[in-house]
């Protein structure tokens, strides 16, 4: 098992913070310790992968959202960490872990889709109750639009007539939990209410089409 100072040396060596003499001593240790060498190689590979996918400097898109998600995940996993393993070294590693996790998340985010610009709409979370439906989201620069694509939704039968409305104004009555929808000429077109299961019920007044 490595001592805390050995871990600290490893981080300093990776970050290029050692003096020439320290670097020489560490290189000697590295040559003699296969475990240490393996750990160094693993961390170098991870660092190299991250650098390959990330620019030297970048603004974290929706940083608050990522940080909150990371904090939630850490809080969820905290009870699973045995107390015997917890040491001051774990706390030393925590910022590195958070940075690495954030970087991986951001890299994945960038690979999956180009990050939204300040003026772009963005989908933050998706929940699909039906397991056979798959949702994915992306931003189209060309269309200047954000897309939420639902794959696997059961097709609407071809013989079903879709009746469209032109709704210009609504009034909501919270006492009876209904919303009345009005058309171009101020006519009542539709009333939306909810049943005891909180599901919407739509009642047409003036069907069109």
């Amino acid at each position: 098992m490595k001592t805390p100072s050995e871990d600290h040396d490893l981080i300093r060596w990776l970050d290029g913070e050692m003096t020439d003499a320290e670097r020489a001593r560490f290189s000697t240790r590295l040559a003699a310790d296969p475990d240490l060498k393996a750990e160094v190689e693993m961390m170098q590979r991870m660092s190299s992968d991250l650098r390959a996918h990330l620019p030297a400097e970048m603004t974290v898109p929706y940083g608050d959202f990522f940080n909150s998600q990371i904090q939630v995940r850490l809080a969820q996993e905290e009870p699973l960490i045995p107390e015997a393993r917890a040491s001051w070294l774990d706390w030393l590693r925590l910022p590195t872990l958070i940075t690495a996790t954030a970087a991986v998340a951001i890299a994945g985010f960038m690979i999956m889709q180009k990050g939204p610009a300040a003026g772009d709409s963005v989908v933050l979370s998706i929940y699909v109750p039906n397991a056979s439906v798959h949702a994915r989201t992306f931003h189209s620069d060309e269309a200047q639009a954000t897309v939420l694509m639902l794959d696997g939704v059961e097709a609407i039968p071809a013989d079903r007539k879709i009746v469209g409305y032109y709704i210009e104004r609504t009034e909501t009555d919270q006492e009876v939990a209904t919303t009345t929808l009005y058309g171009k000429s101020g006519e009542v077109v539709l009333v939306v209410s909810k049943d005891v299961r909180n599901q919407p019920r739509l009642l047409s007044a003036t069907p069109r089409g």
Partner: protein
Amino acid sequence: MNWLLIFAIMTGALTLANAQQPIPVVKPATDGKVWGALVYATNNAKGFVGSNEQAPADFADIPQRLGKVFPYQRFEILGQHLQDVFREYESWVVPTKDLFLKVDSKGPAEGGGMNLHLQFWRDQQVLVKTDAVLKAGSPLFIGGPKWREGQLVFVLVLQK
């Protein structure tokens, strides 16, 4: 007959009856306004249903934008709905009875736009729930179910 359905019909009928008479209404506080439309995307204009709906001038380029995302060349607006987003209450965007959207405001977004919780409904079934930041000039396209020779797409735009 299902008691829930009877209840919903009675509630709706009462409201419809009341809606015919002018009642003083206190307008709830709003956080913004959205335009929602259900669009039929197809490559065969002969399959159009004959709707005369046109997008408002501010959103006139929506069909062109849709053409850059969906693999269809022709787009017909089946229905549209201009809706206030209520601050304290849910809002409904119902361009058709078949596919519609429930919108809950989560307040203004940093840097402009609105934080919204959206539920996309098909009849009595919610297809997707999502939290989104909607910015003016950046529409949200929801690719919905296939229909006839094409696909139904729900468009949601925050009005400037």
